[in-house]
């Protein structure tokens, strides 16, 4: 762990992540105002003593809205990824462990799904499902599944041929023990690393869907939606698009940097 924090990537990533997660966990309680309350006399204002980050078109406090939107924005990324990674990993592990025709059938289908670009795939699914946060979450998860399955499979495959797994096979261990105690613990780190980085993509896709009107819906304080709603006013008060936009960037950056640092720390090839 000492090595982990010796890289600037890890320090910056962890710092950002702590900020974002704090906002996600305690944001609604930290917010100085009710995020939905109108302040008709203080509309579209820049930062001031009363409103640290300014206000939006209804005079709602931007800081409070951003803090309030943190849980839904971050949770979206985390849960969509968790779901996609969970299902994808199970599929990938099944493919990787079974091998043979099961593996090749699963891989053919995954290749087919991977032929559709991520955002397009998500967009199709979410439109089919009819928009909304839950559907967007499901869509991102579904879109992540094939890629994650692939990564999980290759992680399993690379572990499967390690000598300690062979040793377990030679010992006559049960398949359950081999997968559970020998393969999975060692295949987990690439999956965890990938999942961490993917949270940042999920946050970005979620925000994009919110922006396109297919994700979170008013009066939600999801950050992508906040940018979309404020776009009309962006020349009058750039703060109301910049604040949620940069919040998204910060959250995505945090997960991204943290994931990369994690990868470096876990990859024996890179550490010396």
């Amino acid at each position, binding site marked *: 762990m000492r090595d982990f924090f010796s890289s600037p990537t890890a320090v910056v990533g962890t710092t950002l992540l702590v900020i974002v997660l704090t906002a996600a966990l305690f944001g609604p309680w930290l917010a100085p105002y009710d995020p939905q309350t109108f302040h008709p006399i203080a509309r579209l204002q820049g930062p001031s003593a009363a409103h640290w980050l300014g206000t939006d078109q209804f005079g709602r406090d931007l800081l409070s809205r951003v803090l309030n939107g943190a849980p839904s924005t971050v949770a979206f990324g985390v849960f969509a990824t968790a779901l996609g990674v969970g299902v994808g990993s199970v599929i990938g592990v099944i493919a990787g462990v079974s091998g043979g025709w099961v593996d090749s059938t699963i891989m053919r289908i995954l290749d087919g799904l991977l032929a559709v670009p991520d955002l397009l795939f998500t967009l199709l699914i979410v439109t089919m499902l009819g928009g909304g946060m839950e559907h967007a979450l499901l869509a991102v998860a579904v879109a992540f599944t094939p890629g994650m399955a692939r990564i999980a499979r290759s992680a399993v495959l690379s572990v499967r041929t390690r000598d*300690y797994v*062979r040793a377990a096979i030679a010992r*006559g*261990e049960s398949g359950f023990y081999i997968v559970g105690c020998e393969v999975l613990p*060692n295949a987990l780190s690439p999956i965890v690393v990938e999942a961490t980085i993917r949270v940042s993509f999920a946050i970005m896709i979620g925000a994009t869907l919110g922006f396109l009107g297919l994700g979170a819906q008013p009066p939600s304080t999801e950050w992508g939606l906040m940018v979309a709603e404020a776009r009309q006013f962006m020349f009058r008060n750039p703060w109301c698009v910049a604040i949620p936009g940069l919040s998204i960037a910060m959250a995505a950056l945090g997960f991204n940097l943290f994931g990369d640092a994690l990868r470096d720390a876990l990859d024996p090839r890179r550490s010396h």
Partner: protein
Amino acid sequence: MTSPLTPAVTETTKAALAIRNYSLSYRTADGIVSALKNIDLTIAKGQTVGLVGESGSGKSSMAWSIMRYLPPNAVETAGAIRLAGEEILDYTPRQMLDIRGRRMAMVFQDPSTSLNPTIRLGEQIAEVLMRHRGLTKVEAMQEAEAALARTGITHPKDMLQRYPHEASGGEKQRVVIATAFACEPELIIFDEPTTALDILTARQILDLFNQLREETNVSALYISHDLGLVSRVVDEVSVLHKGVIVESGKVDDVFRRPKADYTRQLIGAVPNPDRWIGIDAPVNPEPLISLETIGVHYNAPTMLQKIFQPKEAEKAGFWGAKNVSMDVRKGELLGVVGESGSGKSTIAKVLAGLQEFDGKLQFDGKTFASRKDIDRAYRRRVQLVFQHPDASLNPRQTIGTIIGRPLKLYGIVPADKVAARVADLLEMVRLPADYAKRHPHQLSGGEKQRVAIARAFAAEPDLVICDEVTAALDVSVQAAVAELLVKLQKDTGTACVFITHDLNLIRQLAHRIAVMHHGALVDFFDGPDARSDDRDPYTKALLDAVPVHAAAEQSQDMMEGSAR
């Protein structure tokens, strides 16, 4: 420390390379780490000097220092390195650019990584000629062809057009050597040039080296961990230990009358085929396990292929083992030797139940005709130790868990006795009992291999298969592991199949030796008969290819004393 051979000043000026009182350190997170201390080394014109040491001794750092190719965190604290009397420590990087490749060249350990995979071999030789001798591309290619021809490649013109992956390991190393000799340098550094090659190929490269050295009268620094090998090619040798040259001198002097303890220890660790260290042969040999016409076909053609493309199907895949029949006797140590790809590891996998096979295995009255038949009882009684201890121990488990696992799996001891038994096993392989709490990455390579061996013996097996268990270890560690195995065999009466490419080592240990080549069993004989005339020609070739250092036979007594 003072070198025993302090050369005269006049000699220094004449020397191709003279290193004086040179020290090198690296700045690391843990502070400054010393790599080389007060090195004195002289290579006279036309002379070859050996630099021998185990991994971590600093022998590679020495090569980089001479080539002036050091990482940014290197700190040269003192000394001089002179090439034909010129102080190269003072040279600018630009000046060094003109010296490297022209006046000093280097041959690397692994030709498959030191050649650029995307550039044709011809260009890789020619670029040096164009750079240093100012030849045009056409001239350089002609010259490259000639250089390659000198290395004994049969169709040099054809070879120039190939990519590295289209050439064999030996051919690639010849290309590297041709490149090194291309500009007729004053000094060539050979950094373990045969380690990555097979026995026979290594021998050929060694011969080539000797031949070229005579032809060109080049000076050379030959870096190796292999004492036997060094004794065949060098005039003088320096032994490097932890960054310090502990001894140097004429090769015969050093090997016959080593002065430093470390040299003695090192020489003692070198396998000497004439020094038996194994246990006595079993008195009444009973077969334990027998292999009957075992065959393994990798990438075998599918049924469909056989029907529709019989021609292609014939060629598809290759035989890892073909029609191999032999037996292992109770309590004996059977050696299986061969070059890489000979099928020796395939036999290990078949025995360990890791590889599907044709034919039959007979074990204790039971017959196994397929991998699926192999039951847990068999698996308990036949244990496998892998080549790389790094890979065979699960990095996420503690040593205690790893060694305890067979105990639990096979119910060898009651659950509450597992910890105690693990401690016993650790002690048996000469490791402290508190290692049980550690993770593999906290152990050294030799210690990890001991753990792997302890795990195998934990199952109280009848047969332990050792697949190149010493190959990844340093010489001194190798010897200790081999001894440990013998001791365990003595204590437990377990039979052992010892798979190796090291003929010297196996002749010290094995009661019987099987020789494999291209998947087939070509020779099978009792250990003492290794040198008899009715050996297969391939066996003879292998035995001839293996270097045995000149001093070995003559100073046997003394070495035995130093090893114990």
